[in-house]
Every structure is written in C-alpha cells, then in structure tokens.
C-alpha cells in the first residue's frame, strides 16, 4: 500500500509531505529529489526504485506528485490514485500550480487524510468530498445536524457518490464523447499502428435517485439485436466518412456507479449517476478508425547543405464539418542554419528552440487539402551521423468521434418523482482530438 505521498515544485522543494506508514522515513523525500528530479539524465520511467523503496510519480506542469511505498503494490492502482488526486485538486482549486498548492495546503492535507487511509485509497469522488471538505471558495450548505448525519449515511452507505433529496427545476443532462486518436503512418501512407482512446464524460442535473441506462453502438449489442430480428435504423451514421453500424470496443472501464454485474451479463450500462460532472466510462478501440487527416510528406536532400520539404495535408471527413486548432510540426535537422517557408493557408514558422517548423491552421473543412513547402539550409558538420528523420506530428480537433462510436440512447427512470424520460433535456457532443498523430518522413 502507499506509504507516503509527496508533492514537489520544479526545484525539488517539498510542498506537501504526508507519510502514512512507518517504513517510509524522511530520507525517502531526498532520495526522490536527488535521483529523479535532479537526476543528471532525465528519468523517463514513471516508476523508480531506490534502496528497496518504490517511487511512482506523475508530473503536472512544474509540479511533481510522488507516491512512495516499500511494498509490492499494484502500480496501476497507484497511478489511478495519483490521477484521481490531480482531478480532485483541479476540482477544488482549478490549476495545479506551486502558487495554488501553497495557498491551499491545509485543504490538501485535509483531502489527503480523507482519500487515503493508512495508505489505502478511499472515496475520492469529488462530488461527495465537496459536501464535507469545504474550504475557501466552496461554501458549506449543510449546517444542521440533520444534514450532517445525512452526509455520514451517504459516505458510508451503499451509494456513496450521490446524496438523497436532490431537486432541480429543470432536469438536464450533458453527454460528451471525448476521443483522442493515435496514429503512426509510414511515408507511403501505410498505417503502422492506430488506436483511439475515448472517454464518455457526463454532467447530470437530475432530481431524486434516477436510474439511467446508456446505450451505444457496441458491436456485441448490435449483433445480438440483429440476430433477434430487430433492425435499428438509428445506428446509421451521420458523422464521419464511413457508414458503419457498430464498433468493436477492445476494452473499457467504468465509473464506480455502473452496475458491473449487469454489464457482464447483458452488456447494458445502467447506473445511478452522481450529481454534477464525472467520467462515466473509458474505452479503447483499434479497428476501423476514421483518420481525420492524412499527411503526405516529401523530403529531398539537395547536397550536404540543403533540404527541401513539402508536406500536404488532406482532411478526410464530411465537408460540412470543420476541424479546428490544426498544427503540423515538421522536425528539422539539428544542423539547420536557416529556413524559408511558404504556405497557402495558415501560418508557419521555424522554431529554433524546438528544432521544428510549426504550421498552424485555425479551421479546415472536410475533404480539402493544403500544403506547405520549406527550404532548409544546413551547416556542414564533421559528425558523420545521418539525420534520424523524426516523424511529422500533428494536432487537431474534430467534431465527431474517430472511433465511430455513437450514443444510441440514454434513458432516465425515476419512479419516485413524477418526471419521465421525455422530460429530461439531453445534450450530446462529440469531440475528437489528436493524441500522438505521427507520419514518418
């Protein structure tokens, strides 16, 4: 189990230090600072071992979060916890920065006391935490004894993530499908590896203790229904290029509110949602991914001192949709001494500090193409090493799900209160972003 948790600033100074177990001494703090933060070589592994002690760290901007243990713990659990910790802190004081951590350090200790007990992670549901850990901006609404006892029963009860007696005048529900698409493509346009990792994030403002049921075009479900004879026309695609009916999900994880037994037996996702914002599920797909952009590179070396680069990007989705925040990053050799760029659309610039040409386009519709050409001057070096030609990477945002996932329904039942599924206002939004989207050149 987690023996202790430390938060450092970029200099390696300890901002927060919370030790849960006796086997972690004060020197563990220094060991991490010396061997990881101040290491001569950059430490890339998120897990490091010194003197029979394991350190798991994540870095948020300039802040290091490190969990320390002497036992053989489940590393995935520790990281899940660290990320959850980041989420909780973000929910309390927005950005995680040195300044914010220093200002909220009493709060952070209080949170750490609550969400880790003797090194075992406890309830880390932001909504629930906010009901009883209240500091600064978050005003406490519960002062009466009755309300306090309600908190206790909620936190210790079966449905720890939702309290009783929530009431809204307008029952409203927001559903976001957020996906990031990762790609590695050969110069000839062959897909070497591609996968989508997606999240379904929900914001619910519903009264009472509603029972929800979420449906999407999961291949297994659709096939089962297809066998049963019912055809579902709503499965037809309105997005993206392909009109495929269903998607194969490689693996998925759910929020604790989802009834896993029901998912296992019927593959239906039913749950009592927490109040406010939360992540309903995470999933990953690798088959039939819609690649929103195609990058076609052309690199020509002219003698030892010159390099000509031409890159064409093609958008590959419905013309009515608009991609945003497009950025293409073309790496330049380490001995670049000067760059001239010409591009039709957007702005391009050589960034010496990053050894790359960065080309930015604000908006681009589907089924279009655009190109950039650059002349790179090189300084002859006495190093015989050839340039490694790192891949061209790309960033963008598109308003559909590259995996092809579609929400079929989200039904809400609240038998005790008198509102039905039709009375709930539902919003669905798809956002596809680039993860690591690279093309070799």
């Amino acid at each position, binding site marked *: 189990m987690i023996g202790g948790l430390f938060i450092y600033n*970029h*200099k390696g100074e300890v901002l927060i230090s919370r030790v849960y177990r006796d086997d972690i001494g004060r020197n563990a703090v220094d060991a991490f600072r010396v061997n990881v933060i101040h290491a*001569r070589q*950059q430490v890339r592994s998120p897990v490091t071992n010194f003197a029979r002690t394991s350190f798991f760290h994540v870095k948020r901007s*300039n802040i290091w979060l490190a969990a320390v243990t002497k036992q053989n713990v489940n590393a995935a659990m520790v990281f899940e916890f660290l990320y959850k910790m980041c989420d909780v802190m973000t929910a309390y004081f927005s950005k995680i920065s040195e300044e914010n951590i220093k200002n909220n350090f009493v709060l952070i200790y209080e949170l750490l006391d609550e969400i880790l007990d003797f090194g075992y992670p406890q309830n880390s549901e932001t909504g629930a935490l906010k009901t009883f850990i209240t500091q600064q901006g978050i005003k406490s609404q519960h002062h009466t004894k009755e309300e306090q006892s309600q908190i206790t029963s909620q936190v210790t009860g079966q449905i720890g993530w939702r309290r009783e007696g929530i009431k809204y005048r307008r029952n409203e529900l927001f559903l976001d499908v957020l996906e990031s698409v990762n790609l590695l493509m050969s110069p000839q346009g062959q897909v070497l590896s591609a996968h989508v990792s997606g999240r379904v994030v929900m914001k619910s403002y519903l009264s009472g203790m509603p029972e929800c049921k979420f449906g999407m075009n999961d291949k297994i479900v659709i096939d089962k229904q297809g066998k049963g004879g019912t055809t579902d026309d709503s499965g037809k695609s309105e997005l993206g290029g392909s009109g495929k009916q269903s998607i194969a999900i490689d693996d998925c994880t759910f929020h604790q509110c989802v009834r896993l037994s029901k998912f296992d037996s019927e593959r239906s996702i039913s749950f009592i949602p927490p109040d406010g914002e939360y992540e309903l599920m995470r999933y990953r797909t690798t088959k039939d991914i819609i690649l929103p952009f195609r990058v076609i590179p052309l690199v020509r070396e002219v003698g030892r001192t010159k390099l000509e680069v031409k890159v064409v990007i093609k958008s590959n989705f419905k013309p009515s949709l608009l991609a945003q925040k497009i950025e293409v990053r073309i790496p330049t050799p*380490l*001995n*670049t*001494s*000067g760059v001239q760029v010409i591009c039709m659309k957007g702005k391009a610039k050589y960034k*010496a*500090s*990053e*050894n790359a040409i960065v080309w930015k386009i604000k908006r681009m519709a589907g089924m279009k193409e655009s190109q950039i050409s650059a002349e790179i*001057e090189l*300084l*002859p*070096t*006495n*190093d015989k*090493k050839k340039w490694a030609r790192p891949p061209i990477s790309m960033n963008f945002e598109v308003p559909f799900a590259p995996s092809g996932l579609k929400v079929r329904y989200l039904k809400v039942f609240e038998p005790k209160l008198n509102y039905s599924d039709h009375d709930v206002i539902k919003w669905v939004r798809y956002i596809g972003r680039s993860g690591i989207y690279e093309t070799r050149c």
Partner: protein
Amino acid sequence: MPAVSKGDGMRGLAVFISDIRNCKSKEAEIKRINKELANIRSKFKGDKALDGYSKKKYVCKLLFIFLLGHDIDFGHMEAVNLLSSNKYTEKQIGYLFISVLVNSNSELIRLINNAIKNDLSSRNPTFMCLALHCIANVGSREMAEAFAGEIPRILVAGDTMDSVKQSAALCLLRLYKTSPDLVLMGEWTSRVVHLLNDQHMGVVTAAISLITCLSQKNPDEFKTCVSLAVSRLSRIVSSASTDLQDYTYYFVPAPWLSCKLLRLLQCYPPPEDGAVKGRLVECLETILNKAQEPPKSKKVQHSNAKNAILFEAISLIIHYDSEPNLLVRACNQLGQFLQHRETNLRYLALESMCTLASSEFSHEAVKTHIETVINALKTERDVSVRQRAADLLYAMCDRSNAKQIVAEMLSYLETADYSIREEMVLKVAILAEKYAVDYSWYVDTILNLIRIAGDYVSEEVWYRVIQIVINRDDVQGYAAKTVFEALQAPACHENMVKVGGYILGEFGNLIAGDPRSSPLVQFNLLHSKFHLCSVPTRALLLSAYIKFINLFPETKSTIQEVLRSDSQIRNSDVELQQRAVEYLKLSSIASTDVLATVLEEMPPFPERESSILAKLKKKKGPGAVSVNELEEGKREGGELNGGGERGDNSAISTPSPSADLLGLRTGPPVTAAAPSAGSLLVDVFSEADLEPPTESSDSLLAEGPGDSDATPGCPCMFVCLTHTHTLLSLALRFVCKNNGVLFENQLLQIGIKSEYRQNLGRMYLFYGNKTSVQFITFTTTLNVQSKPVEPLIEGGAQVQQVINIECLTDFSDAPLLNIKFRYGGALQNLTLKLPVTINKFFQPTEMASHDFFQRWKQLSLPQQEAQKIFKANHAMDTEVLKAKLLGLGMALLENVDPNPENFVCAGVIQTKAQQVGSLLRLEPNAQAQMYRLTVRSSKDTVSKRLCELLAEQF
C-alpha cells in the same frame, strides 16, 4: 553583430549563461540551448566573415553548451581559426575549445598541429606556453608523434624563457607517460639533467618530475643526476627559511622540490662517491634535526610541509638500508609520531615502521615501541590506523616477543572489526606456528583462536594444527587433553568439533586412562555435538567413531548401536550412509588385527610450506608488508616442522593404502594432506580444473570442424565394445592426467576416466544430461568406427560407455568423436577430440645415470631429437613439474642430470607393432621463465609429437 563593449568580457556570453541559470526546468534549458545553437549556426553559416571577437564569443558559448552535457558537432573550424589570431584571449579560447572538444581522429588535426607549430616557433613566450599546455592537455598519441621531437629542443635551448621551460618539461612528462616509445632519448637527456642546476626554482621543480619519471625507465642514462640532486638538496636544506623568497611555504624552504628530490634519489642505490654520500647523510641528518626543532608556526600547513619532507627522507633512509645510525634515528622520530594528535601522522608512522621493522639495523629499535603499538591497537579510534598497528605488530614479531604479541592480537580479535578479522586470524596462526618453541602453547593458541573467532578460521588453519599435532609425538597427549576440555563447552564452534573429532580419533587413547575422560565419556562428548554439525563434519565424526572401535574395543557395542540407527544407516546423504554401512560391516566382520591394520594411526605429513602463509599472500596485494613476509617466511620457514622429522621421508613417500581406503577418503583433511603421490597430483591439477569449463569447451568446439577435415586415417585402431554412446575430445590438459571433465556446456557434461596398461587402454565416458528434459535421438560417432546407440538420455541422468583401446603403432592425431542429439526441438551437434595421446602408452623405465647418458648418445641422429624452447605459462614450481612429468607416464629419474634443477625422464612407448624408447630432458631457467625441452626417441615422429604435446603443459 554590433560591437558591444569589446575588451571587458563578452556580454552575449554572460547573458546566455544567466538565461540558462534562470531556466526553471530541464525542458526550458534545452529550448534555450536549441535556440542559441540555431543562432550560432546561422552566424557561422553567414557568408560575411565574422570578426575575431564574435567568433571567440560563439566558440565560448559552444564550449559552455558542451560542458553542460550537450553534443557539439560544429564550430571546430572557427575554433581552429581563432588559433591564428594575434590576440591572447582569442588564442586562449581557441586552444581551450580544442583541448576540450577535438578528438584525435578529426581531419582538423593537421590544421591544429600547424597552428601549434607556428606558436612553438614564435618568440612569444605566452603563445609558446599556450601551445605547450594544449599539447599536454590533449596528450594523445598523435600529439606525441607530431611534437615529441620538438619539445626537448625547446626544453634545453639556451634562450628559452623560464616559464616556457617549465611548461615544456611538464608537457614532455605528459607525452612520455602516454606514449613512452615516441619520446626518444637523445643528447638532450644529459642537458635535461643539468636543469637541476637552473637558477629558477620553478624550472627545477618541473624538470625533476620529468627526470624522476624518465630515470625510472632508464636509470643508467640519468645516473649523473644523483650528485646534482644531492647538492641541490643540501643547498635547500641548509638555506634559511627566508632565502628562497617565493618558494618558501610557511617557513619551510621549497618543500615540494625537496620531496621530489628525495623521491628521485629513491630511484638509485646509495651514491658510491664518498663526498656525495657524506653530503647526503648530512642533509638527512639536518632534516631529522629540523624535525626536533620547535615549530616556527602553529599553522597546520607548516607542520604538514615539514613532515612531508621528513617522511620522504625516512623512506629514502629505509630505501638505502645501510646507515644504522640514521635508521635508528628515523625509528625514534617515528616513535614520537605514534602518539601524535594527528591521525594521519600516526597512520604514516605505523606504515613506515612496518618497513623499518624488516631492516636488520632497525628491527631492535622498532621493537622498543611495542607497548605503544599495542596500545594503539587497543585504543585507536580510526580503523585504518588499527589495521596498520596490527600489520606492524606482525612485522615486529620475533621469537622474543611472540608470546606477548600473539596474546595481544588474540585479545584484540574479540573486538576487532569484521573486515580485518580473517586476516588477523591468519596472522595469529602464522605467528603462533612460526615462533612456537613450546607446542602446547601453539595448540592452546590455535584452539583459543577457533574459540574466539571460529567463523573466520579458514580450513587451512585447522588442517595445519592437525598436521602439526600428528607430526609431533610430544604434543599429542596434551592436544587430546586440551581439545577434550575445549569440547566440554556447551556451545563450541564447528571447526573445534572437527579438530576434536580428528584428534580424539587418533590420540584419544592417550587420555583414556583418566576416568574423567574414559573412552565412553569421550565418545558421548563427541556424539553430543554430532547433530549440530554439517555433513562434512559428521562424516569426519563417523570416521572418528570407527577409530574408537579400534582404540577401545569396549565402546564397540555402543558405537555399532549408533551406526545401526536409522538416522545413520538410512541417512539421505549418500556419503554418510555409505560410511555408516561400511564402518558397521567393517567393525562386525573384521578381526581386531585387520581393524588395527586398517585403522592404523595416520603417518606423519610431508613437510610443506604452510598453506596459511600462501593464503595470506594471496589475500594481500604485493605491498611492502607482504614482501617482508616473504623474506621472513624464507628465513624462518620450516623451523617448526624442521627438527627431527626429516628422516621420515621414506615413510611419507609410501602411501599407506589402508589409511587411504578407509581413513577419510573424502574427508577434507586427507585431500589437503594425504601423503600419496596420487593425491599430490590431485592437488596440482585442482588448479587447472578451476579454469572456467565453458571457455575451454568453446575452444574445443572451435577447434572441432577444422580437425574433422584432417584425414581420418588414424593409424591407431579403436574398437567399441559396449553398448552405450561414445566419446570425447582431446584437451591438452589431459596429456598429463587420465580423469576429469572433458566437456561441459549448459546441456551436457562429459566426464572421462581412463586407464592404460602397455599398449592397451580402457576409457570410461560418462554423459550427463544437465537439463530436466530428455535428449532424444542421441547418437555418437567415432571417426574410426561408429555404432548405433540408444537414442535417449533422460533429464538429469547419466549414461556410461566403455571404450577399449589398442595402440597398433605410433600416431599423432587423436580420434574424433561426434555427438548428435535433440534437445527440445533443436538438433545439437558436437565434435570433440578424444584425449588419447601417444604418451598414454608409456611404460616407465628406471635407469642409472650412466645408462641414461649412454642411451642418450645412442639416439644422436638429428631426426631422432626434437627440441623446443618456450616460455613458462605457469609458475615454475618444482613439485608441480614433477607431478606433471609423472602424469606423463615416464619414469622421473633422480640424480641423473648433473644439474639438480633439470629433470630427466625415460620410458618406452608400447604399441602392438613395436616399442619406442624415449628419453626426455627438461631444463627450466627460472630467471628467464623459459624452459628447454629435449626429447629423443628411436622414432622421429614420436619425438616430435611428444615435444609438441609437452610444450603446452608448462
């Protein structure tokens, strides 16, 4: 770039450095550096020429980036350009960049060398110094090639400035150290020596470092420096502290120079010229006198400098080892330091005293400090000083104070640091043995040693005590009594049980008369320890029990009872079980006469160098102390075992078969000490067996295919008579022995056992499967004759095969063995040479001296003789050589060759067709580490083959 405040530093560089320092993270730093590199690249790329200042600035930035740990792959050309600048700062930065960044394979090296040459030939001393420093800093072979001829010229030229001379001397020293073959001695060497007379002290200091290094390699060429050094030294020593101005350091005149002079003198023997010697002795006396004067300053630097000279002088005195007066004074001086406040001084004093103790003149003087040293051992806080004190005690020990020192070391052992305990134990054991006048004292000491530090007592120590007890009749009774008493302690160390078991088994009868130690009491005492011991000790105890049956028939029933118990006779350990069964049968079947013969008392052990001493030597590197020990060992060696025992040699050389058979055949004491020639052989070859088997098997495999191309027409015929698989390879190490592991890898181990008689031989091959998986389709093929074999070897199993061999005529190629099998899915294929060599069929022939030489002369045709001169591969140990020659199969003839160092052997090779007489002569030359081997035999091919085989063995 617009000129910014030229002259006072480089602002751009300062800004860049402060930017880097202000970076909050590594990423930010890398970004800033990338930006700067791009900027510098665009500047260097630009067609317009940069002025010197900007070039210098950018090169500086590159250097800084490089020192931050980033790769720099450009800018070298610009740096080289800077070398030709006329400004000092620009030149300096250029040289700096080059000495840090340019590696030898660069094509720029020609340009750089050119620039350096220009600077060296310029008359500007600062430029010359810069160039010399660059050469020394790079110090590569290329640099040495280019400038090794030039620098000596600069060094001895009359018009060279002093500062340049200093740099040149040090630069030459550096080049000499990296590539001594390129610095050629010439007429300049004699002139370098005269630099010792230079006016400028700096030049002298630099030159003396060079001379010291050079004279270590070529002492004769620099002989003249001794008198110059002595006169220089005497001038410094006799000068007042103010005479040397800049070179006086805290009131000590030129301490570094003095130390170096003294060190130079240590390269040479004492000067023969009386005047020079007198002057030198005077100097040394002055230095010793000065040490007595009250310090001129309380500063630590003053005393450090003074003591540095003093210690250097003392090591010179020790080096000369010819002035009793000085040696004693040095010793007294060191004695004062023994109680000094400074830990370092105490350490150094003890260290120097260790070397002083070995000098015959000062040994007595050192001994007077014994109390202080013992005190240091007890009270010193620093462990390294305690270690030195222990070393010194060991070095100063002799017959007169041995008892005291050993007692002190023993008492110290109880509290000694773990790191030095083992060494201490060895030392105590050696001293106790070396200086024992009274053997009961020796036995007491060693038993005490085992009691106090049993874990650190190595096998050798207790083997030794048993050897000594067995060889000395007079202590046997006492030893038995003492071990009996020692064993009565409730918890005693296993080594003690071993010693006790052995000694009581041999000499228990000597104390059986006392009712307190009656046979049954003795047995019960030993048996009470039995269950706490490891298997080898239990095996030893079982042997002791059977000896008890012989010594005291009244214990027979009790002991048989014990042997018969399930825990013995059904012991899971094969060794113990076998002993129990055999001893039980032996005791119940054999008559008392047979028992008495079989279980006879162990014969005395042969005299050998103490194995403990060898162990200590191995433990410590070749240092001053161990050299000492070697000498001491020679001087005093064998004193203990000397005495009257030498006459027993005849008894020693005849092995007592009964003892070998039943005594302790696999017990450790016998392997260490059994007197038969056979076990000596084991001893000798055990070293060879330590070679990593994989390595040798690799080379075998590599050899395999090539050999298989050779003609298979081996003139010797092999007949496979039995059913299982065959064969092995010829490893050279099997020339002189018949048994061992022929081949081993992760899968398969092949063992070999062979016996030869006249022209017949029988070879047993053992194929062991080391894996847990069975080998399938296992086949072996002999290139002479092959036979299908049973195709399975179960995992972990071993299969045996016997080959009968008959030698038809002489041969030089060994038969090849090919092994094929499937392991898992993969087909394994091995080709090995069988270790059958012509010498296996030797019949030893004893002959007298004149017979030998007569036959030697008969075989005088040139083709009958084969001779080889070769370098020794192993240590030239007479015993080892003898054992190897015996293993060869010839008779080793004593007292034949007029030179006792040489070995001569005679034998007849028995083949079916004919008999080939062979004579052999091996002449070792210990100085050159060479051997000359001559073989004469009646058949020329045999001589040649024997010569080839043997040349690899020594």
